[in-house]
C-alpha cells in the first residue's frame, strides 16, 4: 500500500517537473513530450489518488508557520477528491490532446512558457480543492486565475485577446473579493482562518452572519462559475484562450467555483435543516435558471464556435446550480432523500459537463487548428475530411443536448426529477416557484439541442462556405486520442449511470439506492409507488436489438435495391453552390425573432452603388447584430459612472501649487474643527 500522502505528492511533483521542464526545454523539439508527458502521468496519479480518497480515508496534513498566523493545511475528503477526479480526468485527456495541438507553438518557438503555465494551471486547481485554510485557498485560487489569465492572453498580439483577458482578470478578482469577505466573516466569528474552525464553529454563527457568508460566497464563487449576471468574462475569455486551455477552463476551472459553493454551503455557513435557509436554495434555483436560459439564448445565435461553447458553459452552470439549489431547499425542509437526488443531479451534471465540454472544446480546437477560423459562417463540410473529429464532436453534441443514451441525459433526467419532486415541499409558494423555474429550465434543454444542431451541422455538414478552407486534413492521432477518452467517458457515464451515482454517493457520503450497474434508478412517490424509473443499460439493449431487428426486417422486405449518388435537387436551376446554403445566422433567425425582446436584433446595412444612382447597387453588406443587454444595461453604466468619478478626481490634481496647499489647509482646519467640536459635544 502506498500511503495517500505520497500519492498526493507524486502528482504535485510531476506537475512541477512538467512546469520546470517546460521552462528548461527552450522550445526544443523535445519540448512537447517534456511538458505534456509529466502532466499526463500526473493526471493519472491524481485520478488514482482521488479514487483512493473516495473509497478510502481522508487525507489531512498541516505544515505550520510558513507565514505568520497561517498554516498550510491540506485536507482532501470525498468532495475534494470528487473534484480532483474531474481535474485529473479532463487534464489527462487535454494533455494528451495538447501534444498534437501545441505543435503550432513549437514551430513559433513559444511553447516553453506555455508548458510552464499549463502545468501550473492544473497544479493550482488541484491545490485549490485540497487546501484547508482560507488564506492558502485564496492564494491558490488567485494563482489559478492568474495563470489562466496568462493562458487566455497567450496569443497576445491581438488587442482583443488582451481586452478579454483583462475583463476576465478583473471579474475574477472581484469575485475573489467576495470570497475573501465570506471567509473573513468566518474568521471574525471563529478567530481562525482554518477551514476546520469554520466547520466546527459555523453552526454557532448568528443567522445574519450565516446568510452573509452564504451570499458573499455565492457571488464570489458564482463569478468564477460564470453565473448570470457575473458571466461577462466567460464568453470573452474562453474563445481567446488556446483551445486546450479553453477546454481546461470551461470543463474544470469553472467547476472549482461550484466546489467553492458546495464547500461553503454545506461546510462553513452553518447551513442546517431549517426553513430559514430555504431562500438560499431558491436564490440558487432562480439564478441557475436565469443563467441556463440566458446562456443558451446567447449560444444559439452565436457565430463564433468557441464563444457559443462558452455561452453553453454558462447554461450548464445554470443547470448545475438549479440542482444544487433544489438540494439546499430539500435539505432545509428535511427531505433528505430528495436532497440526495438533487445533489446527485447537480454533481452528475458537473462531471458530465466537464467531460463533454472538454470534448467539445477540443473538437472546436481541432477545427480551428486546421481551418484557422472560429467563425462557423466560413465552415462546413468538414465531416468528409475530418471523420474522427466530427464523430467525436457529434458524441459531445448529443451528450450536451441531453439526449439518451449519453451522459447528459442522465443528469438532466435527475434534475428534472428533482424539479418534479418539489411537490413534497410543505410550502405552496415554493412549490409553485420551483414549478415555474422548470419552465426556463425546460426551454433551455430545448434550445441547447438547437444550438448543437447548429454548431455541428454548420461546422461539419454540407458544403464548406468559404473558399479559403481547402486542403483540410484530419488532426494528429494524439488529438483524436485525447478527445476519444472523453467521448468514451460520455458514453460510459451515459450507458452505465451506476458509475456516476455510486461515485457521487460515495464521495459525498450519501446513501443512494442504486446497488448495481443493472439496478433501476428509481424515485418513489408519496404513496410508495415508483414515481420514475430509469435503466439505461436496458434501454441500450432495446435500442440495439430494435435496430438489428428493423435492419433485418427492412432487408427482408426490400430485397435487393440499388443506391445511386446524384447531386442535391436544385429545382432545376443549375448547380448549387455554397452561397445558396443556409448560413448559421439564418439558421437561428427564427429563434432570434421569437426572442427579439431579449436580443433586440438589428441590421446594419452598407450599400455601395454605381455612380449617382442609388438603385444601381454594386454591393450590399448586411450585418445582423444583437444587443448584449448585460453589457448595455449593467456593466456600461457601472463602468461609466466610475470613469465619471475618476474624471472628477483627476480635476483635483490641477498642477496649481496653490490648490495643493489649500487642500492641506482645509484638511488641517477640518480635522482641528472635528476635534474641537467633538470635544464640545
Amino acid at each position, binding site marked *: 500500500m502506498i500511503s495517500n500522502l505520497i500519492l498526493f505528492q507524486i502528482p504535485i511533483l510531476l506537475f512541477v517537473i512538467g512546469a520546470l521542464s517546460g521552462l528548461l526545454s527552450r522550445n526544443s523539439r523535445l519540448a512537447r513530450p517534456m511538458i505534456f508527458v509529466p502532466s499526463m502521468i500526473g493526471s493519472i496519479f491524481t485520478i488514482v489518488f482521488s479514487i483512493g480518497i473516495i473509497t478510502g480515508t481522508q487525507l489531512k496534513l498541516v505544515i505550520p508557520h510558513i507565514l505568520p498566523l497561517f498554516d498550510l493545511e491540506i485536507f482532501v475528503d470525498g468532495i475534494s477528491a470528487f473534484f480532483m477526479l474531474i481535474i485529473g480526468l479532463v487534464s489527462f485527456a487535454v494533455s494528451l490532446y495538447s501534444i498534437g495541438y501545441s505543435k503550432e507553438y513549437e514551430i513559433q518557438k513559444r511553447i516553453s512558457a506555455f508548458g510552464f503555465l499549463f502545468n501550473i494551471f492544473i497544479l493550482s486547481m488541484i491545490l485549490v480543492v485540497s487546501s484547508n485554510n482560507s488564506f492558502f485557498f485564496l492564494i491558490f485560487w488567485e494563482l489559478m486565475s492568474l495563470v489562466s489569465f496568462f493562458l487566455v492572453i497567450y496569443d497576445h498580439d491581438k488587442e482583443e485577446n488582451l481586452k478579454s483577458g483583462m475583463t476576465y482578470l478583473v471579474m475574477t478578482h472581484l469575485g475573489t473579493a467576495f470570497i475573501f469577505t465570506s471567509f473573513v466573516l468566518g474568521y471574525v466569528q471563529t478567530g481562525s482562518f482554518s477551514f476546520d474552525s469554520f466547520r466546527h464553529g459555523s453552526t454557532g454563527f448568528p443567522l445574519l452572519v450565516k446568510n452573509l457568508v452564504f451570499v458573499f460566497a455565492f457571488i464570489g464563487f458564482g463569478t468564477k462559475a460564470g453565473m448570470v449576471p457575473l458571466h461577462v468574462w466567460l464568453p470573452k475569455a474562453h474563445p481567446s484562450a488556446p483551445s486546450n486551455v479553453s477546454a481546461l477552463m470551461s470543463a474544470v476551472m469553472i467547476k472549482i467555483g461550484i466546489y467553492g459553493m458546495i464547500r461553503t454551503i454545506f461546510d462553513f455557513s452553518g447551513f442546517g435543516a431549517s426553513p430559514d435557509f430555504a431562500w438560499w436554495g431558491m436564490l440558487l434555483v432562480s439564478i441557475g435558471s436565469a443563467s441556463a436560459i440566458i446562456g443558451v439564448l446567447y449560444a444559439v445565435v452565436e457565430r463564433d464556435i468557441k464563444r457559443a461553447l462558452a455561452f453553453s458553459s454558462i447554461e450548464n452552470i445554470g443547470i448545475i446550480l438549479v440542482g444544487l439549489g433544489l438540494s439546499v431547499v430539500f435539505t432545509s425542509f428535511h427531505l433528505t432523500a430528495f436532497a440526495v437526488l438533487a445533489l446527485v443531479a447537480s454533481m452528475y451534471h458537473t462531471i458530465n459537463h466537464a467531460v463533454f465540454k472538454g470534448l467539445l472544446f477540443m473538437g472546436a480546437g481541432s477545427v480551428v487548428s486546421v481551418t484557422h477560423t472560429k467563425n462557423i459562417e466560413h465552415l462546413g463540410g468538414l465531416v468528409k475530411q475530418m471523420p474522427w473529429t466530427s464523430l467525436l464532436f457529434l458524441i459531445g453534441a448529443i451528450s450536451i443536448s441531453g439526449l439518451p443514451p449519453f451522459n447528459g441525459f442522465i443528469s438532466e433526467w435527475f434534475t428534472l426529477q428533482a424539479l418534479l419532486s418539489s411537490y413534497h415541499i410543505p410550502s405552496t409558494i415554493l412549490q409553485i416557484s420551483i414549478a415555474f423555474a422548470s419552465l426556463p429550465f425546460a426551454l433551455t434543454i430545448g434550445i441547447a439541442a438547437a444550438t448543437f444542431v447548429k454548431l455541428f451541422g454548420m461546422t461539419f455538414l454540407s458544403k464548406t462556405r468559404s473558399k479559403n478552407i481547402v486542403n483540410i486534413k484530419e488532426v494528429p492521432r494524439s488529438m483524436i486520442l485525447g478527445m476519444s477518452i472523453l467521448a468514451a467517458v460520455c458514453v460510459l457515464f451515459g450507458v452505465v449511470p451506476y458509475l456516476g451515482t455510486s461515485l457521487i454517493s460515495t464521495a459525498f457520503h450519501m446513501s443512494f439506492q442504486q446497488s448495481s450497474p443493472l439496478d433501476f434508478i428509481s424515485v418513489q412517490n408519496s404513496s410508495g409507488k415508483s414515481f420514475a424509473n430509469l435503466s439505461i443499460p436496458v434501454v441500450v439493449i432495446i435500442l440495439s436489438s430494435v435496430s438489428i431487428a428493423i435492419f433485418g426486417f427492412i432487408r427482408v422486405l426490400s430485397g435487393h435495391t440499388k443506391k445511386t449518388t446524384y447531386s442535391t435537387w436544385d429545382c432545376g436551376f443549375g448547380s448549387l453552390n455554397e452561397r445558396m446554403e443556409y448560413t448559421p445566422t439564418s439558421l437561428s433567425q427564427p429563434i432570434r425573432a421569437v426572442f427579439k425582446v431579449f436580443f433586440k436584433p438589428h441590421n446594419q446595412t452598407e450599400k455601395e452603388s454605381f455612380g449617382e444612382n442609388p438603385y444601381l447597387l454594386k454591393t450590399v453588406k448586411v450585418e445582423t447584430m444583437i444587443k448584449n443587454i448585460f453589457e448595455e444595461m449593467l456593466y456600461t453604466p457601472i463602468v461609466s459612472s466610475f470613469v465619471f468619478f475618476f474624471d472628477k478626481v*483627476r480635476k483635483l490634481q490641477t498642477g496649481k501649487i496653490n490648490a495643493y*496647499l489649500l487642500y492641506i489647509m482645509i484638511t488641517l482646519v477640518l480635522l482641528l474643527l472635528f476635534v474641537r467640536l467633538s470635544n464640545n459635544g
Partner: protein
Amino acid sequence: MDTIQFDILTISGAILLIATFGIVATRGFMDWLNAYRYQSIVLSGVTAIIGYVTGIWEIYIAAGLTLVIKSIIIPKVLTYVTRKLEIEFKLETNPYVSIRASVIISALLVALSYFLIQQIPFKADQIVNAYLPVSMAQFFIGLFVLVNRRTVLSQVVGLLIIENGLFLFAMALTHGVSLLIEIGIFVDILVGILISSILLFRISRTFDSLDVGKLENLRDD
C-alpha cells in the same frame, strides 16, 4: 505685577500680528522683505520678553540669533538672489483673493486660531496664553499667503511667515529648553531658504518668469 506682565505679553503679541498683516497687505517684493524684517525684529523682541519672563538665558541667545538670521541674513540672501530679476517679477499683480479680502480673511484666521486653541488648558502659563494663538494665527496667515499668491517669491515669503510662527510657537511652549534642536531647526530653515533661492533662480532662468502659473505642466486633468 502679573497683570502688567500679561499686558506686555498681549501687546507684544498684537504688534507681531500687525507686523504679519503688513506682509499680507503689501504687493511688492521689497515691501514684503521690509515687512518681514520688521516682523522678525518684533519676533526677536518677543523672544527676549519670553527670556525675561522665564529667566532662561538661552532664550536671549535665540533672540539674538533671530535678529541676526531673520532680519539680516535671510533678507540679504533673498535680495542677492533676486537682484538680477526684472522688476515685474517682483510684483504680485493678481492674487486669487484681493488684498482687501486677504486682510479680512487673515482676521478671520486669527479668530479661528483663538477658537481652536481655547480647549487646551494652559495651567495659567501666561506666555502660552498670550502667544500660542498668535503663533497659530501666523501659521494660518502664512499658509493663506501661500495659497493666495501667484508668484514664487511671495510663496517664499509665506514660508517665512510660517517659520516665524513656528519659532514663536516653539519658544512660547518650550521656553527653548533644547537649544540643540532649536539650532537644528534654524539650520534646516536656513538651508531650506537657500535651496528655495536656488530653485527661484532656476525657475526664473528656465521659465523666464516667476509666476507659479508657469509651473502647471505636471498635472492630471
